[in-house]
């Protein structure tokens, strides 16, 4: 009886959590919806569209019947917003604001609310280019606030910061990597106190942390390479030192990390005693632009600056097919119901059939600049611009 109860509980919890999209590129940072619609045709339609109070590039976070996202407003984008909307109709449930304590200047293409928020299912953490971090519960009660540039006045990038935090266990992992005071840290989710802080290469970096498949390590990418760290302590587990991009972020599939480094380099951690990962292959012709690569159906997908989608073998990186999508993108593609969701900068959303060499199944003209990576739960796609958030039902 007890076993049956436990099994039912686990199933219920799993069902609940699988539908969530808790951080940039999803719960496990693979850009794949955990609970896909079976045999989705790729057709979609606008369920609702909501106005937003400020600029933002961060992806929405989906927790059950709530959608969370951040925005920045004011003449200097000094006002930092966390918004909670109803997933049912897009109506605003609550809004909270704080004031930036760090510098808010950035390139006009980006904004202060560039990073995506993150959640552990209990709290929502907003993080901004000003390196301010705010934590609320899901009802909008403030839990704690930190100002990391207030703490470290040279932790900033005049072009703007964009790395999105991830949450692993009780720790929010935040990369504050720039030309001057450059570090990553783990903040305690309950108190906001610093659990660990490590120095990082002094070079501008817009990539985000990625979680290993077993959840035991977090991969920090920089121009120096990749460092795998223990998310609870910040202790370095292994290092790859052959350089990597500062914009698109690696993707993990199984025990392999596909890193934007010398094209794409596939890394697999060696046995536990080794500090260097095994390099499985390198493929210089795979050149992701701003958008991060994604793995689906045992294939690697990379989009270049011109919107050319390349499908490559996971085994050795060789090209299997290419398809020209319409327009270049800053948003990373995500996988929903086995299809690839691609939004170009002009706001044309394209649903791409990966089983049919990149044929576009359906499109949605959003008619606004879209630079933000979509979020997906089991039933819908969520896309935001500076002005609006759309929910697209997967029909």
């Amino acid at each position: 009886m007890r076993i049956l109860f436990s099994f039912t509980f686990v199933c219920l919890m799993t069902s609940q959590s699988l539908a969530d999209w808790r951080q940039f590129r999803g719960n496990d940072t693979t850009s794949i919806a955990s609970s896909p619609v079976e045999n989705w045709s790729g057709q979609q339609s606008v369920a609702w569209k909501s106005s937003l109070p400020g600029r933002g590039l961060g992806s929405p976070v989906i927790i059950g019947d709530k959608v969370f996202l951040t925005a920045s407003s004011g003449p200097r984008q000094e006002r930092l917003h966390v918004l909670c909307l109803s997933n049912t109709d897009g109506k605003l449930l609550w809004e909270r604001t704080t004031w930036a304590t760090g510098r808010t200047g950035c390139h006009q293409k980006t904004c202060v609310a560039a990073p995506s928020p993150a959640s552990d299912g209990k709290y929502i953490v907003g993080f901004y280019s000003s390196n301010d971090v705010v934590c609320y519960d899901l009802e909008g009660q403030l839990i704690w606030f930190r100002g990391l540039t207030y703490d470290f006045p040279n932790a900033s990038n005049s072009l703007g910061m964009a790395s999105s935090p991830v949450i692993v266990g009780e720790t929010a992992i935040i990369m504050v990597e720039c030309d001057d005071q450059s570090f990553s840290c783990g903040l305690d989710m309950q108190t906001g106190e610093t659990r660990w802080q490590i120095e990082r290469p002094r070079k501008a970096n817009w990539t985000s942390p990625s979680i290993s498949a077993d959840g035991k390590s977090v991969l920090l990418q920089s121009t120096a390479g990749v460092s795998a760290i223990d998310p609870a302590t910040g202790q370095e587990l292994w290092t790859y030192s052959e350089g990597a991009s500062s914009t698109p972020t690696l993707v993990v599939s199984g025990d392999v990390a596909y890193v934007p480094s010398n094209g794409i380099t596939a890394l697999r951690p060696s046995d536990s005693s080794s500090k260097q990962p095994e390099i499985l292959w390198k493929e210089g012709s795979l050149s992701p632009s701003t958008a991060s690569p994604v793995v689906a159906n045992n294939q690697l997908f990379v989009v270049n600056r011109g919107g050319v989608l390349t499908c490559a073998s996971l085994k050795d990186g060789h090209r299997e097919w290419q398809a020209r999508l319409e327009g270049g993108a800053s948003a990373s593609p995500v996988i929903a119901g086995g299809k690839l969701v691609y939004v170009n900068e002009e706001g044309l959303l394209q649903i791409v059939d990966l089983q049919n060499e990149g044929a576009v199944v359906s499109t949605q003209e959003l008619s606004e600049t879209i630079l933000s990576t979509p979020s997906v739960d089991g039933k819908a796609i969520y896309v935001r611009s500076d002005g609006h958030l759309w929910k697209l039902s997967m029909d």
Partner: protein
Amino acid sequence: MYRDVRAALAMLLGVTLCFPTLAATTNELISAIQAVESVGKNHSQAVNAIQELNSGDATTLVPILNAMGTANPLALNWLQGAFESVASRSLVAGNLPKEQLETFVVERSNNAQARRLAYEWLVKVDPSAEQRLIPGMLDDPSTYLRRDAVAYAIHQAKSAEADQQREFWKVALNGAVDEDQVKEIAAALKKLDSPVNLIEHFGYLMDWKLIGPFDNIEMKGFNVVYPPENEIDLSAEYQGLKGAVKWEPFHSDDPEGLFDIAKLTESHKGAIDYAYTTFNSSEERDLEFRLSIQNAFKIWVNGELLFAREEYHRGMHFDQYIVAAHLHKGENVILLKVCQNEQDQDWAQDWSFTFRVCDSTGRAIQAAR
């Protein structure tokens, strides 16, 4: 002393929160939150206090607003979170204290951010407050409120009869400190043959003495102490990167305040110039230096290092760096170390800065004559 009192109160609250029967007062909760400092210091008490403060009733709203005035920027945001939680519940309950909020808003000595917050919640229950309060805030010390008043004045100028527009635009200009509003007003006045002196309006310093170049090959000069960091001797001559160097005066005529070292001197690479000027203050006072620069730099006033930043060519924005300074009455010496690296891209050639002197609201402070 003040910090000690706060820490003691925070400790007392910590004990109180451990014993639920001893309910902490609003002031005790606020004190625990005001004790929050950088790097997460005093968070353990504050996270308990904020939970209780979040659940307070409408009577706590004004005390929270008042507390924002004596809070550091971190604690201010904690308090704002509590205010918004309480205010949102009070709004639903219909007991948001609008008279008290308005009283707080119109009191100009209150904290600028807290006043803006109070105003935003006031207009949720009393939309007429906007028309009643904003037009009179053109000289308000809160830039967060004054901006709305300037926007209102701009609207009035655009709506005015042609022969009255100039005066309306000038009224708007008097209140404007934000770059976008000032430039919109300046463009309108220029069309009306009343050009605005942006140098004066923003308080840019356009006359500097320069010495250099010193060696910054491979960006190694940032922390090298060259002679101008030890002494300001305007008649001295030192060994520089390419030979002997000495101080020379330069004036920039750029209408938007740019002091372009590369243009005024030579576009050296891997080089450092020092820029020296003085500012005659009519009184001993706190103020702000606001810089825009995409070179690594250091800034000193009267020999004290205020800020150092080692970043190259990541962009240049209005009021990019806000550096607090304390000036004594009379002549104050300002020294800038402006470092250029060796990047060869087109977008990495700037060796320049803008530098203005203003109060904490961004309003220019002119040097005493």
